[in-house]
Protein backbone atom coordinates (compact mmCIF):
# COMPACT_ATOMS: atom_id res chain seq x y z
CA UNK A 1 0.00 0.00 0.00
CA UNK A 2 1.22 3.49 -0.81
CA UNK A 3 2.35 5.73 2.04
CA UNK A 4 -0.05 8.63 2.67
CA UNK A 5 1.73 11.89 1.86
CA UNK A 6 1.17 14.44 4.61
CA UNK A 7 3.52 17.28 3.62
CA UNK A 8 3.51 19.31 0.40
CA UNK A 9 6.54 18.28 -1.70
CA UNK A 10 6.93 21.88 -2.91
CA UNK A 11 6.62 24.00 0.25
CA UNK A 12 6.54 21.30 3.04
CA UNK A 13 3.32 22.65 4.54
CA UNK A 14 0.72 20.11 5.76
CA UNK A 15 -1.53 18.68 3.04
CA UNK A 16 -5.31 18.59 3.45
CA UNK A 17 -7.83 16.14 2.00
CA UNK A 18 -9.68 17.53 -1.01
CA UNK A 19 -11.73 14.54 -2.03
CA UNK A 20 -12.96 11.22 -0.63
CA UNK A 21 -14.44 8.44 -2.70
CA UNK A 22 -16.59 5.39 -1.86
CA UNK A 23 -14.80 2.30 -3.04
CA UNK A 24 -18.16 0.56 -3.75
CA UNK A 25 -20.38 3.05 -5.63
CA UNK A 26 -17.63 5.55 -6.52
CA UNK A 27 -19.54 8.48 -4.97
CA UNK A 28 -17.09 11.29 -4.49
CA UNK A 29 -17.20 13.91 -1.76
CA UNK A 30 -15.20 17.06 -2.24
CA UNK A 31 -14.20 19.66 0.30
CA UNK A 32 -11.31 20.65 2.49
CA UNK A 33 -10.72 18.19 5.32
CA UNK A 34 -7.83 18.31 7.72
CA UNK A 35 -5.90 15.05 8.23
CA UNK A 36 -6.16 13.67 11.79
CA UNK A 37 -2.94 14.30 13.77
CA UNK A 38 -2.03 10.59 13.82
CA UNK A 39 -2.06 10.46 10.01
CA UNK A 40 0.79 12.95 9.92
CA UNK A 41 3.13 10.53 11.71
CA UNK A 42 5.52 8.17 9.99
CA UNK A 43 4.26 4.60 9.41
CA UNK A 44 6.73 3.41 12.09
CA UNK A 45 5.30 5.82 14.65
CA UNK A 46 1.72 4.83 13.73
CA UNK A 47 2.66 1.17 14.12
CA UNK A 48 4.20 1.93 17.51
CA UNK A 49 1.07 3.77 18.69
CA UNK A 50 -1.23 0.95 17.51
CA UNK A 51 0.89 -1.70 19.23
CA UNK A 52 1.00 0.43 22.37
CA UNK A 53 -2.79 0.50 22.43
CA UNK A 54 -2.98 -3.23 21.83
CA UNK A 55 -0.83 -3.93 24.91
CA UNK A 56 -3.08 -1.62 26.97
CA UNK A 57 -0.40 1.02 27.25
CA UNK A 58 2.07 -1.20 29.10
CA UNK A 59 5.66 -0.12 28.42
CA UNK A 60 6.93 -3.40 29.85
CA UNK A 61 4.81 -5.40 27.40
CA UNK A 62 5.91 -3.11 24.57
CA UNK A 63 9.55 -3.71 25.51
CA UNK A 64 8.95 -7.48 25.41
CA UNK A 65 7.10 -7.25 22.13
CA UNK A 66 9.74 -5.13 20.39
CA UNK A 67 12.62 -6.92 22.14
CA UNK A 68 13.94 -3.56 23.30
CA UNK A 69 14.78 -2.28 26.77
CA UNK A 70 12.19 -0.45 28.86
CA UNK A 71 13.96 2.96 28.68
CA UNK A 72 14.39 2.67 24.89
CA UNK A 73 10.65 2.12 24.47
CA UNK A 74 9.82 4.88 26.93
CA UNK A 75 12.15 7.31 25.10
CA UNK A 76 10.45 6.44 21.80
CA UNK A 77 7.06 7.10 23.36
CA UNK A 78 8.30 10.43 24.75
CA UNK A 79 9.49 11.40 21.24
CA UNK A 80 6.05 10.62 19.81
CA UNK A 81 4.33 12.56 22.61
CA UNK A 82 6.60 15.49 21.76
CA UNK A 83 5.58 15.26 18.09
CA UNK A 84 1.88 15.07 19.01
CA UNK A 85 2.21 18.24 21.12
CA UNK A 86 4.07 19.98 18.29
CA UNK A 87 1.42 18.98 15.73
CA UNK A 88 -1.32 20.23 18.06
CA UNK A 89 0.53 23.52 18.51
CA UNK A 90 0.94 23.89 14.73
CA UNK A 91 -2.74 23.12 14.16
CA UNK A 92 -3.81 25.63 16.81
CA UNK A 93 -1.54 28.29 15.30
CA UNK A 94 -2.98 27.52 11.85
CA UNK A 95 -6.56 27.89 13.15
CA UNK A 96 -5.73 31.20 14.82
CA UNK A 97 -4.20 32.53 11.59
CA UNK A 98 -7.27 31.57 9.52
Amino acid at each position, binding site marked *: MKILPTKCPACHNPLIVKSLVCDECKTEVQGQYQLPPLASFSPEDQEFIL*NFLKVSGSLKDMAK*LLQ*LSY*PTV*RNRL*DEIIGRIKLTEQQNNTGKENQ
Partner: protein
Amino acid sequence: MIAHEMNISTDSKISLGQYLLNPFRTLAGGTALLLGFIIILLTAFVGALGNTHFDGVIDVHSGQAAPLWFFFAESIIDWLSIVLFLTVSAFIFSPTRWRFIDLLGTQALARWPAIFTALVFLPDANRRVNDFIIAKLTQSSTQLTIHPMDGVIFAFASIVTVVVIIWMVVLMYKAYAVSCNVKGVKAIASFIVSILVAEALSKVLIILMFKRAL
Protein backbone atom coordinates in the same frame (compact mmCIF):
# COMPACT_ATOMS: atom_id res chain seq x y z
CA MET B 1 -1.15 -11.37 24.21
CA ILE B 2 -0.43 -12.94 20.85
CA ALA B 3 2.67 -11.51 19.25
CA HIS B 4 1.72 -12.40 15.71
CA GLU B 5 -1.39 -10.25 15.94
CA MET B 6 0.83 -7.24 16.34
CA ASN B 7 2.55 -5.26 13.67
CA ILE B 8 6.13 -5.40 14.81
CA SER B 9 8.64 -3.08 13.18
CA THR B 10 12.33 -3.83 12.68
CA ASP B 11 13.31 -1.93 15.86
CA SER B 12 14.72 -5.04 17.48
CA LYS B 13 17.30 -5.76 14.75
CA ILE B 14 20.59 -4.80 16.33
CA SER B 15 24.05 -4.94 14.82
CA LEU B 16 27.19 -6.21 16.55
CA GLY B 17 28.42 -2.61 16.79
CA GLN B 18 25.31 -1.64 18.71
CA TYR B 19 25.74 -4.60 21.03
CA LEU B 20 29.30 -3.48 21.78
CA LEU B 21 28.67 0.27 22.01
CA ASN B 22 25.04 0.50 23.07
CA PRO B 23 23.69 -2.78 24.49
CA PHE B 24 21.24 -0.72 26.57
CA ARG B 25 18.93 -0.42 23.59
CA THR B 26 17.87 -3.95 24.41
CA LEU B 27 19.16 -4.45 27.95
CA ALA B 28 18.34 -2.38 31.04
CA GLY B 29 16.60 -2.61 34.40
CA GLY B 30 16.90 -5.65 36.63
CA THR B 31 18.59 -7.87 34.01
CA ALA B 32 21.33 -5.30 33.39
CA LEU B 33 21.74 -4.85 37.14
CA LEU B 34 22.15 -8.57 37.78
CA LEU B 35 24.55 -9.10 34.85
CA GLY B 36 26.47 -5.93 35.61
CA PHE B 37 26.85 -6.73 39.31
CA ILE B 38 28.12 -10.25 38.55
CA ILE B 39 30.64 -8.81 36.06
CA ILE B 40 31.79 -6.14 38.55
CA LEU B 41 32.45 -8.85 41.17
CA LEU B 42 34.13 -11.12 38.64
CA THR B 43 36.35 -8.28 37.39
CA ALA B 44 37.32 -7.40 40.96
CA PHE B 45 38.14 -11.06 41.65
CA VAL B 46 40.33 -11.39 38.53
CA GLY B 47 41.88 -8.02 39.43
CA ALA B 48 42.73 -9.38 42.88
CA LEU B 49 44.57 -12.32 41.30
CA GLY B 50 46.90 -9.93 39.47
CA ASN B 51 46.83 -7.11 42.06
CA THR B 52 45.07 -4.85 39.57
CA HIS B 53 43.23 -2.07 41.37
CA PHE B 54 40.26 -0.29 39.80
CA ASP B 55 40.95 2.62 42.08
CA GLY B 56 38.71 5.23 40.49
CA VAL B 57 35.71 5.43 38.17
CA ILE B 58 38.03 5.44 35.14
CA ASP B 59 41.26 4.46 36.83
CA VAL B 60 43.33 1.29 36.79
CA HIS B 61 46.62 0.65 38.55
CA SER B 62 48.64 -2.50 38.93
CA GLY B 63 50.56 -2.93 42.14
CA GLN B 64 50.03 -3.44 45.84
CA ALA B 65 48.64 -6.66 47.24
CA ALA B 66 45.45 -6.28 49.30
CA PRO B 67 42.75 -8.51 50.76
CA LEU B 68 40.06 -9.71 48.36
CA TRP B 69 37.33 -7.58 49.97
CA PHE B 70 39.35 -4.45 49.17
CA PHE B 71 39.18 -5.16 45.42
CA PHE B 72 35.41 -5.74 45.62
CA ALA B 73 34.96 -2.53 47.63
CA GLU B 74 37.00 -0.51 45.10
CA SER B 75 34.84 -1.67 42.19
CA ILE B 76 31.59 -1.04 44.05
CA ILE B 77 32.76 2.45 45.11
CA ASP B 78 33.59 3.22 41.43
CA TRP B 79 30.16 2.08 40.27
CA LEU B 80 28.14 3.83 42.97
CA SER B 81 30.13 7.09 42.69
CA ILE B 82 29.24 7.55 39.03
CA VAL B 83 25.63 6.48 39.68
CA LEU B 84 25.36 9.10 42.44
CA PHE B 85 26.40 12.03 40.26
CA LEU B 86 24.53 10.86 37.18
CA THR B 87 21.40 10.59 39.33
CA VAL B 88 21.81 14.24 40.32
CA SER B 89 22.41 15.19 36.66
CA ALA B 90 19.35 13.22 35.54
CA PHE B 91 17.16 14.96 38.11
CA ILE B 92 18.32 18.30 36.72
CA PHE B 93 18.47 17.60 32.98
CA SER B 94 16.11 14.74 32.13
CA PRO B 95 12.99 16.15 30.48
CA THR B 96 10.97 13.02 31.22
CA ARG B 97 10.42 10.42 33.91
CA TRP B 98 13.11 7.75 34.31
CA ARG B 99 13.72 4.73 36.53
CA PHE B 100 16.63 4.58 38.97
CA ILE B 101 17.00 0.83 38.40
CA ASP B 102 17.77 1.49 34.71
CA LEU B 103 20.56 3.93 35.58
CA LEU B 104 21.93 1.63 38.31
CA GLY B 105 21.78 -1.47 36.10
CA THR B 106 23.13 0.04 32.90
CA GLN B 107 26.00 1.76 34.74
CA ALA B 108 26.93 -1.62 36.26
CA LEU B 109 26.83 -3.29 32.87
CA ALA B 110 28.80 -0.42 31.28
CA ARG B 111 31.79 -1.52 33.36
CA TRP B 112 32.00 -4.94 31.71
CA PRO B 113 34.98 -4.16 29.41
CA ALA B 114 37.10 -3.74 32.58
CA ILE B 115 37.32 -7.53 32.73
CA PHE B 116 39.74 -7.37 29.78
CA THR B 117 42.05 -5.05 31.73
CA ALA B 118 41.95 -7.38 34.72
CA LEU B 119 42.85 -10.30 32.43
CA VAL B 120 45.75 -8.61 30.57
CA PHE B 121 47.27 -7.55 33.89
CA LEU B 122 47.29 -11.12 35.22
CA PRO B 123 50.81 -12.06 33.97
CA ASP B 124 53.55 -11.44 36.53
CA ALA B 125 55.52 -9.54 33.87
CA ASN B 126 53.36 -6.48 34.59
CA ARG B 127 54.33 -6.47 38.26
CA ARG B 128 58.03 -6.76 37.35
CA VAL B 129 57.80 -3.81 34.93
CA ASN B 130 55.85 -1.87 37.54
CA ASP B 131 58.52 -2.50 40.16
CA PHE B 132 61.19 -1.52 37.63
CA ILE B 133 59.45 1.79 36.80
CA ILE B 134 58.96 2.63 40.50
CA ALA B 135 62.60 1.76 41.23
CA LYS B 136 63.76 3.98 38.38
CA LEU B 137 61.52 6.86 39.41
CA THR B 138 62.49 6.70 43.07
CA GLN B 139 66.08 5.70 42.21
CA SER B 140 65.83 3.20 45.03
CA SER B 141 67.76 0.57 43.11
CA THR B 142 69.90 0.76 40.01
CA GLN B 143 70.39 -3.01 39.85
CA LEU B 144 66.92 -3.80 38.57
CA THR B 145 66.52 -4.76 34.91
CA ILE B 146 63.58 -6.04 32.91
CA HIS B 147 63.29 -8.76 30.31
CA PRO B 148 62.27 -7.36 26.87
CA MET B 149 59.31 -9.78 26.80
CA ASP B 150 58.06 -8.29 30.09
CA GLY B 151 58.13 -4.89 28.41
CA VAL B 152 56.12 -6.19 25.46
CA ILE B 153 53.51 -7.74 27.78
CA PHE B 154 53.28 -4.53 29.81
CA ALA B 155 52.96 -2.39 26.65
CA PHE B 156 50.18 -4.67 25.37
CA ALA B 157 48.36 -4.49 28.72
CA SER B 158 48.68 -0.69 28.72
CA ILE B 159 47.25 -0.38 25.19
CA VAL B 160 44.36 -2.69 26.06
CA THR B 161 43.71 -0.62 29.19
CA VAL B 162 43.51 2.65 27.23
CA VAL B 163 41.09 1.08 24.72
CA VAL B 164 39.02 -0.43 27.54
CA ILE B 165 38.78 2.89 29.41
CA ILE B 166 37.61 4.72 26.25
CA TRP B 167 35.12 1.91 25.53
CA MET B 168 33.86 2.01 29.12
CA VAL B 169 33.37 5.78 29.03
CA VAL B 170 31.37 5.46 25.78
CA LEU B 171 29.22 2.75 27.40
CA MET B 172 28.69 4.81 30.56
CA TYR B 173 27.58 7.78 28.47
CA LYS B 174 25.20 5.66 26.38
CA ALA B 175 23.82 4.07 29.56
CA TYR B 176 23.13 7.52 31.00
CA ALA B 177 21.61 8.89 27.77
CA VAL B 178 19.31 5.88 27.25
CA SER B 179 18.29 5.39 30.89
CA CYS B 180 17.50 9.03 31.61
CA ASN B 181 16.52 10.23 28.11
CA VAL B 182 19.07 13.02 28.14
CA LYS B 183 20.30 14.29 24.77
CA GLY B 184 22.60 16.79 23.08
CA VAL B 185 24.93 19.27 24.75
CA LYS B 186 23.18 18.93 28.12
CA ALA B 187 23.83 15.18 28.11
CA ILE B 188 27.50 15.50 27.15
CA ALA B 189 28.26 18.38 29.53
CA SER B 190 26.44 16.86 32.51
CA PHE B 191 28.11 13.49 31.85
CA ILE B 192 31.61 15.02 31.71
CA VAL B 193 31.06 16.95 34.94
CA SER B 194 29.57 13.87 36.63
CA ILE B 195 32.40 11.56 35.62
CA LEU B 196 35.07 14.04 36.76
CA VAL B 197 33.43 14.64 40.14
CA ALA B 198 32.73 10.91 40.55
CA GLU B 199 36.37 10.11 39.72
CA ALA B 200 37.50 12.53 42.43
CA LEU B 201 35.02 11.17 44.99
CA SER B 202 35.90 7.53 44.28
CA LYS B 203 39.62 8.32 44.57
CA VAL B 204 39.14 10.04 47.93
CA LEU B 205 36.95 7.20 49.27
CA ILE B 206 39.39 4.51 48.13
CA ILE B 207 42.38 6.35 49.60
CA LEU B 208 40.51 6.78 52.91
CA MET B 209 39.58 3.09 52.87
CA PHE B 210 43.20 2.18 52.09
CA LYS B 211 44.53 4.26 54.98
CA ARG B 212 42.02 2.89 57.46
CA ALA B 213 42.05 -0.76 56.44
CA LEU B 214 45.58 -1.53 55.29
